[in-house]
């Protein structure tokens, strides 16, 4: 018992991510990927992230707890007969909304999550986040055969930092994809996910980027539009924040233009019969790097 306490204590105190041990509870998983220490040196970035959907990936837009049907018997093909029967596999959304659950959580986390959904326990569900460590470690390397898996105690970013003043993550290595759309494309969707027992189709944005934006001559990356630097550092709000309606309007106004032409005239439908008519012609142009809407 004492040994078990010590092991959990070490896990809680010093999350390094690439642990072979899996979390058994939501609290353990949250602690394993806890990034609150980052705040002390990266306060501005942390504050941006806190307002982002990455900080509340399981909450849904406007706190709608989007996964609730997955915990309700019969509501989806994945739904278990009872929340206590939930597994990591019955929550396919974890693939992107909580990727660390797929690699670092026992099925008991899924049971706890399902029960929290039914209980509308937003405080507990809110602990499940796509933290700094998810992108800067867990998802930082895509070419794992050639580049190896992310190492414990190492952060990855767009540039190398030889000495990183943290008690666990003591260095920052350069990831070759951090400034590329591929980084975001890991989760922001190519199309239907056919690897599950039943197909799942959520975001298809990266597919749109590759197959519509690039062929149309687009050259910008996701990061160039959605992480424009503020004070020299990438904006980790990664707009839009769908809960900030004026902010959503602003980013859409930047991407979409609307031209309206109107005409009033009397149409000669047939001899001696003029029909008073109004014609409205509209043109919408988009410079977005993907279809609108997508996600």
């Amino acid at each position: 018992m004492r040994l078990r306490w010590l092991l959990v204590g070490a896990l809680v105190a010093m999350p390094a991510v690439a642990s072979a041990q899996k979390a058994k509870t939501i609290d353990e998983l949250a602690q394993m990927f806890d990034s609150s220490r980052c705040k002390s040196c990266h306060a501005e970035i942390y504050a941006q992230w806190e307002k982002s959907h990455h900080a509340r990936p399981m909450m849904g837009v406007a706190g709608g707890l989007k996964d609730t049907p997955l915990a309700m018997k019969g509501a989806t093909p994945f739904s278990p007969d009872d929340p206590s029967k939930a597994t990591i596999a019955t929550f396919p959304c974890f693939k992107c909304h909580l990727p660390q659950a797929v690699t670092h959580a026992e099925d008991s986390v899924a049971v706890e999550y399902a029960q929290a959904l039914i209980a509308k326990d937003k405080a507990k569900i809110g602990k499940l986040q796509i933290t700094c460590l998810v992108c800067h470690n867990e998802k930082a390397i895509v070419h794992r055969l050639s580049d190896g898996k992310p190492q414990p105690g190492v952060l990855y970013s767009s540039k190398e930092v030889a000495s990183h003043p943290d008690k666990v993550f003591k260095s920052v290595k350069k990831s070759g994809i951090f400034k590329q759309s591929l980084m975001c494309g890991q989760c922001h969707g190519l199309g239907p996910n056919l690897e599950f027992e039943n197909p799942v189709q959520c975001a298809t944005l990266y597919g749109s980027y590759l197959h519509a934006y690039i062929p149309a001559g687009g050259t910008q990356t996701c990061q160039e539009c959605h992480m424009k630097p503020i004070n020299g550092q990438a904006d980790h709000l990664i707009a839009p924040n769908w809960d900030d309606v004026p902010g959503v309007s602003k980013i859409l106004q930047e991407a979409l233009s609307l031209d309206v032409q109107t005409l009033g005239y009397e149409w000669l439908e047939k001899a001696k019969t003029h029909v008073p008519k109004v014609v409205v012609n509209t043109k919408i142009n988009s410079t977005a790097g993907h279809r609108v809407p997508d996600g």
Partner: protein
Amino acid sequence: MTAKTADGKEIGKQSRHYHPQATNEKSSKMLYGAQVKTAYLRDTSIQPYRTKEETFEFVLPEGVRSAEVTVNLFYEISSPALIAEIHKVTRTVTLDR
């Protein structure tokens, strides 16, 4: 797009919906929800660097010579009750010269 007379009476209303539309491929019924969608069968969304052109026409009621036309482009975030306005253009159109 809505059109109203000078005294505010609505005389025309038309809309277009821009979004991908999916089924589970087992029926022709459009479905909503990541857990049940399988593939798009129609995509009317706004594509990058492509122009979406529309023409709206309506006949003025007898005796009406002008209309106030409003084109409202908005984004439905998660439900019809939660929308983000993108562009709103209002024009007065008259038959008189």
